[in-house]
């Protein structure tokens, strides 16, 4: 598993924020859809992670991280309500599991975060930790 040194802290934060047993929080579970996280739960996780890892992530950073600095008009097609190819290739770098899901030309922007997994959060924490220490 990538960045596995951060997995225990993320699993603990997710489990405590959602009131789940830690073994229910698997790397592949999606935070919103499968684990049922709402916005206040995400906020809770991020503050818990700040305490245990020292990495500060704002809730607003989450969307920015996923979009990777690609301008809105290149990321998604507003009219067709779908993520554009440039957006898809960015998404596959931060959410690699999307590559195997046959979503090209079909993924609606509002559905993107529903695919965000525990592992994706682990990778986010790791990337921020690397930024902080470098």
């Amino acid at each position, binding site marked *: 598993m990538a960045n596995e040194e951060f997995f225990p802290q993320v699993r603990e934060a997710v489990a405590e*924020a959602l009131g789940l047993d830690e073994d229910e929080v698997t790397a592949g579970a999606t935070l919103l859809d499968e684990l049922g996280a709402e916005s*206040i739960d995400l*906020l*809770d996780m991020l*503050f818990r992670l*700040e*305490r245990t890892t020292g990495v500060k992530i704002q809730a607003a950073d989450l969307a920015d991280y996923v979009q990777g600095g690609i301008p809105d008009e290149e990321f998604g097609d507003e009219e067709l309500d779908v993520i554009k190819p440039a957006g898809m290739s960015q998404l596959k770098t931060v959410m690699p599991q999307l590559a195997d899901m046959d979503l090209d030309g079909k993924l609606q922007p509002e559905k993107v975060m529903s695919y965000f997994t525990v592992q994706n959060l682990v990778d986010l924490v790791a990337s921020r930790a690397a930024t902080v220490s470098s």
Partner: protein
Amino acid sequence: MNLDDRVVLVTGGAKGIGRAICLALAGSGASVAGTYRSSRAEAEDLVRQIEAAGGKAVALAGDVSDAGDAASVVARTIAALGGLHVLVNNAGIVKDVLIFNMEPADWQSVMNVNFGGVFNGTKAVLDHFMAQREGAIINISSVMGERGWIGQANYSASKGAINAFTRSAAVELARFGIRVNAVLPGFAPTEMVSGLIDKGGKGIKRQLPLRRFASVEDVAALTTFLASPDSAYITGACLPVDGGGSAQLGLGRPE
């Protein structure tokens, strides 16, 4: 009640109830930051008084109806006193006028200071409180937020907003280790309500079950309790300190 090593921020801390709260919290061991808008001399005098008694205090200029000022006094408190654990949103004004004669500015200014101050102060401490997973917020409201009074529709509405906000904030922030409660004083003779007390003091007092006005120390004592770990299981409560005034129906007797 022991508040040693705790840092508290009291908005509107120079005069009246806010001053009594600063003194009581300092007396329980807390380091105290008190904000003032125009009463600099009183605020600095209060700091000297607390320091003379062996405590630690700072006076900070700031208008909490302004979100930027609220954020600034929070940052300055943390810088000056090394942390922050308790916020007392106390700053408030009155502008009594009959609704018939009330201009939009008359309720907007009262709302901006009274409710706006509570909102801005609360928002300003959240990042710090949530990161440390600890904090107590005490909103100094009024029984007027639950009952009515001729000429105080604007003040009453602002305090009602504070009470509703207190409950919602308590529910939302509980999981982050933050407690939010409100103190609802009845009639406490301070400069702010001196007109009312001077004019109708005797008649009002006769109607209160405990037959006296609240002292500012009565209000400060409840605030200190809500700031301390002794109230660890209390959140979302709007607690009157009103001598029983709001408990009774009419005068509680035929005449």
